[in-house]
Structures are given as C-alpha cells and as structure tokens.
C-alpha cells in the first residue's frame, strides 16, 4: 500500500491566512469540509472523491494540461457563496500550493500562472515547507 505524504507549502499557508482574514470560510467549514477533503489525498488516487470532476480535476492552461497540476474545488462556500480552489502538485509527494477564490476567468488565469511557477519551483526543490499531513 502506498502511503502518501502531503506537504503544506508556504503558499498554502499564506492562502489560508488570507482567506481566513477575508472571512471566506469559518472554522467549522474548514474543520468539517476542507480539511477532511484534503486528507483524502492520503489515499490518492484510490479514493472515490477523485473520480468526481466537480471536486477534482487536472489543471489546464490555455487548453494545455499542466503536468503534475491538479485542483480541488469547493462550490458556494460561505455566506459569499464563492468558488474555492486549491491547486495541488502531485510529484514524489503531494504538495498543497495555495488556495484562492475563483472570482472570474482573469483571476483564474493569474492564479494558474502562479501555480505553474510553484510547480517549477517544487521540481527545483526551491520552496518553503510549513508542515506535513500524514
């Protein structure tokens, strides 16, 4: 059995602090929905959740699939009923690379350009690790 290791990067940690500050979600939603969903990554790709493309999909940019790039998706989150996205890199380990509110296509494109850079930096071993889930 393969046991995955989930790495919390600085980008993910900063996103959490920002989203919390903006009151995008409350602690209850984080504890009861987001964190358990993230923990499914320990059982990637076997968990049935990863067959649901409303929750999980590969990342594409201008129609091209980005190697090693995936995103988790939550819909109608919080009182603002926003679309929350969490880019995930799957390589030797699984890396949480940030989270953002998908406001429009421009925001999505900017965030994915950042994610592409984060993927390249992880491949180079150039990132900050804030913690692990295992």
């Amino acid at each position, binding site marked *: 059995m393969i046991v995955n290791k989930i790495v919390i990067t600085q980008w993910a940690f900063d996103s959490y602090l920002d989203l919390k500050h903006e009151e995008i979600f409350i602690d209850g939603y984080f504890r009861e929905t987001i964190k358990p969903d993230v923990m499914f990554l320990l059982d990637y790709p076997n968990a049935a959740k990863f067959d649901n493309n409303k929750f999980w999909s590969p990342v594409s940019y201008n129609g091209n699939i980005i190697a090693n790039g995936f995103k988790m998706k939550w819909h109608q989150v919080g009182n603002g009923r926003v679309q929350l996205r969490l880019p995930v890199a799957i390589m030797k380990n699984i890396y949480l690379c940030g989270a953002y509110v998908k406001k429009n296509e421009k925001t999505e494109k900017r965030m994915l350009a950042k994610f592409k850079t984060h993927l390249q930096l992880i*491949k180079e071993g150039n990132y900050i690790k804030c913690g692990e889930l295992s």
Partner: protein
Amino acid sequence: MTALAYSYEENFHLTPSQDVTLFDIAHKMKKYGLSADFISSAIRTALRYEGVADLVFMWGQESNPDERDEIIADIHELIDDCNRGSLEEYTMIRFNDLDMIRKDIRSFKDSLLKLVDERGGISLLSKMTGIPQPSLSRFFNANAMPRRQTLIKIASALKIDAIKTNNFWVR
C-alpha cells in the same frame, strides 16, 4: 499577439519572437512608472519561469489598471520566490495556533502601516524601496506572512532600527 499559446515544459524556453515581445513589454512597464530594478528582475525571471512569463504577457495585454496592479503584485511575489534558491523548512505550525498567528501578523502589519502613513504613505515608500506600489498595498492588506527581505527594505527606507524580523512567522 499569441504569446500565451505554449505548453508547460520541463526545460522551458521562449521563442525569439516571444523574447522580443517580452522586451517590448519591459518598455511599456517603464512608461507605466515601474522601477528599473523591478522590470529587470521581472524579465530575467520570466526568461526562466514560464508562469512568470505568462504573467508578464498578461500584463502587456491588460488594459484595466486594477487588474494590471494585481499582476504586478503577483510577479513581485514570484520574483522573491524564484530567487530564494533552496528548500526551507519551518517549525511545524499547529492548527490550534493558526488564529493566534493570523491576529499577530495583522497587528504587526497594522502598526507598521501606521508608521508608513506617518512618514509619507505607501506611494513614497514605493519610490524609496523600489518595491512596486501594488506589491506594498498587497503586503499591508493581505494577511500572508511578511517576507524578511521586504521588511528589511522597508526598515532601511524608513530608517527604523527596531523592526521585528525575528518573529517565527517572518519568512
């Protein structure tokens, strides 16, 4: 312009025509009032990192000033990330401490912003540090962990001796 139409590759490189577009955008950035330091770093980083190149091209095609500012702040963050150079590991942060950390960072940034406002504001600070104004605005408004290099630049510009750069949440 079709600068965005390429796929992610292990060994990224721009085409000669994309290189030229990048340099054209550098001129545009200069006219927009961005510092030579920032533009030079942005272009150098874009030549190595596809995602940064995407953002520079996006900036070149964008006409909305607010959206342009967001792109500048994104590029600035990535320049810092790309220049770090190696893996860093932090002391593991406990979930139960997150709210305390968030409040601590907010309070720190609010007090620093008060000082910045007393000494001429963000616009002047941008000129003194060479950090683009949109990046400074995001630095103060967002709740992300402050970067040590940014704090040192701010402290140096404002001639503050006692700025706290040794908090464990300063990266």
